[in-house]
């Protein structure tokens, strides 16, 4: 009934070496929205890349621009009011933003798939899950009804839905939250995409189910050697599955690091604050550390470093100059691969 795995099976970096370039490369992406109150600058120059077999976790709070970036990659932003004034989204070296509609549509779903947080509202309630899965094969691969259905059952088996054969004709509401999320994963996997973007895939699930779904996702990723972008606000979930982490704040990446490094030695005060502000299961602390103030107003992002009004270490320079995303090194100048921080005082933060 239950698997107890004495696990030290925390994913080691699985970066693939066979592919030279990254699968997806986002460069200096900007997204803004026109609203009644002015222009909301949701994404302000985001750079990140994912290779095959790699998991990038994008960590941020609401309004950090993490979901908007994903929507821009998928091409599902509402435009208008959305607008991409600047930036490139390279998929296997080709800029998706300058592609024609048809070309882009072919990538979406077949090469890049997305998993949403709310599986119930992402599935069509009046169609059986089998039909919805089979539809992917019929439309994209031109399979017959029968073959498509067989493949749908196969897929449901893959994501370990018990009694797939019997349940293929059930409707989404007949499944539990965890099972629905599995169906979402099955739909995303259907066409064996190169990259999956998962936007808070387990947030709506219970802890015991969360673990099942995350494990499944990690396993399938390994099996298909896919790239995975995991968007989340949960530092705990990230710690379990990610290879590298990009922390976002006010539409910018403020820190990137391999997963272990980030937790051990954060190089940005915001990351530090986040880590300190979550209560720990294995320790009973005193008062929680709380980052003071409020998340920034995207209509009026503070000058200089967007985090400066909430930062305990802010100096004058933080209020005037936007800190670039700089490479982080050891105290002696030794390289720390994959580590960057957008803080004027990263040295003090990481070494002080």
């Amino acid at each position, binding site marked *: 009934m239950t698997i107890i795995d004495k696990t030290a099976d925390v994913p080691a970096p699985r970066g693939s070496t066979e592919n030279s370039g990254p699968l997806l490369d986002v460069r200096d992406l900007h997204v803004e929205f026109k609203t009644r109150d002015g222009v909301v600058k949701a994404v302000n120059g985001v750079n990140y890349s994912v290779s095959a077999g790699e998991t990038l976790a994008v960590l941020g709070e609401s309004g950090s621009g993490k979901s908007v970036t994903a929507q821009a990659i998928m091409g599902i932003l509402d435009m208008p009011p959305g607008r991409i004034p600047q930036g490139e989204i390279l998929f296997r070296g080709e800029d998706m933003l300058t592609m024609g509609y048809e070309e882009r549509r072919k990538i979406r779903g077949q090469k890049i798939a997305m998993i949403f947080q709310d599986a119930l509202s992402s599935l069509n309630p009046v169609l059986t899950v089998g039909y919805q899965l089979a539809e992917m094969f019929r439309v994209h691969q031109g399979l017959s009804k029968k073959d498509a259905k067989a493949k749908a059952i196969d897929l449901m088996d893959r994501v370990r839905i018990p009694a797939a054969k019997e349940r293929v004709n059930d409707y989404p509401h007949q499944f539990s939250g965890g099972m629905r999320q599995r169906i979402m994963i099955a739909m995303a996997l259907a066409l064996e995409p190169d990259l999956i973007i998962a936007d808070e895939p387990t*947030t709506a699930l219970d802890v015991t189910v969360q673990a099942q779904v995350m494990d499944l996702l990690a396993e399938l990723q390994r099996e298909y050697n896919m790239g995975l972008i995991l968007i989340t606000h949960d530092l705990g979930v990230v710690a379990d599955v990610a290879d590298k982490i990009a922390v976002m704040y006010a539409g910018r990446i403020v820190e990137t690091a391999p997963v272990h490094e980030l937790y051990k030695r954060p190089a940005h005060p915001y990351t530090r604050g986040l880590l300190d502000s979550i209560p720990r299961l294995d320790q009973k602390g005193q008062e929680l550390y709380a980052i003071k103030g409020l998340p920034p107003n995207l209509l009026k992002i503070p000058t200089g470093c967007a985090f400066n009004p909430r930062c305990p270490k802010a100096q004058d320079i933080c209020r005037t100059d936007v800190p670039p995303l700089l490479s982080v090194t050891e105290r002696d100048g030794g390289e720390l691969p994959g580590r960057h921080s957008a803080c004027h005082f990263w040295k003090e933060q990481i070494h002080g």
Partner: protein
Amino acid sequence: MPEALETPVKDATQPGSVPAAESKPEKARSLWSDAWHDLRRNPLFVVSAVLIVVLLTIAVFPGLFTSADPRHADLANHYLQKPKWGNFFAPDWFGYDVQGRSIYARVIYGARASIAVGVLVTLLVTVVGTVTGMLAGYFGGWIDTLLSRVTDIFFGIPFILGAMVVLTSFEERHVYVVILALAFLGWTQIARVARGSVITIKQADYVMAAKALGASTTRILLRHILPNAIAPVIVVATIALGGYISAEATLSFLGIGLAEPTVSWGVDISSGQEQLRNAAFVLIIPSIMVSITVLAFIMLGDAVRNALDPKLR
């Protein structure tokens, strides 16, 4: 769905809400003030509002617009004399009808009956419908079953046919008789909208919060449910208003709504049909007035809907 904070909508179009508080300190913004802000910038609203203000002014003070008497018949002014399109606001501007009465004066004085029917029916229907719908929606159970079945029965009666049946049983058909007849048949639409809206609102946490405080049912209904459930009712009522005006015209045209000597657009359309081939303008001018009025209210309703619809904001 706890941490479900970052929906694209909130992320993209709403972050303004918090910050707005910081940048413009003392300006309180409610749904209504936001809606008003939107409405003022909507040409659809501006045009329809101006039209409605003009029409209401005509209805209340017809004397300001013409000195002619709409009931004064002078057979010398025959309908075969064509309208003098250049004589703005003069009695012969739109020509004369079969009995030699100034069409312009009749159109001006007819506005009162038509608009009175529209506005008063809407008011009645809104009050009755909202109360019924609110009680049915809030209490549920047998109250809902009873009220909903009654609503369904009324809903099943074809509006114009029902009005015909009701009105033919009256010997003298004053404006208020027509108003009551239309309201009697029209309230169900509002009741349904109000019921649906109340059912959604009553599940809101703030209603539960009020109950937890020990608030009375009256208080919950008036302070929490009604203000939040009323928006769709207002939209439907505004659009329906135009419908009641055209219903009055239709009934009067059929000879079972208002009748002479009442001056109304419907009555004029009815009498205009006799000479349609000789003098089409006798019929067309009051018809245009009905159309403009109905259109103005429907446009207003649309604009209000767009401004209030939470899905669009």
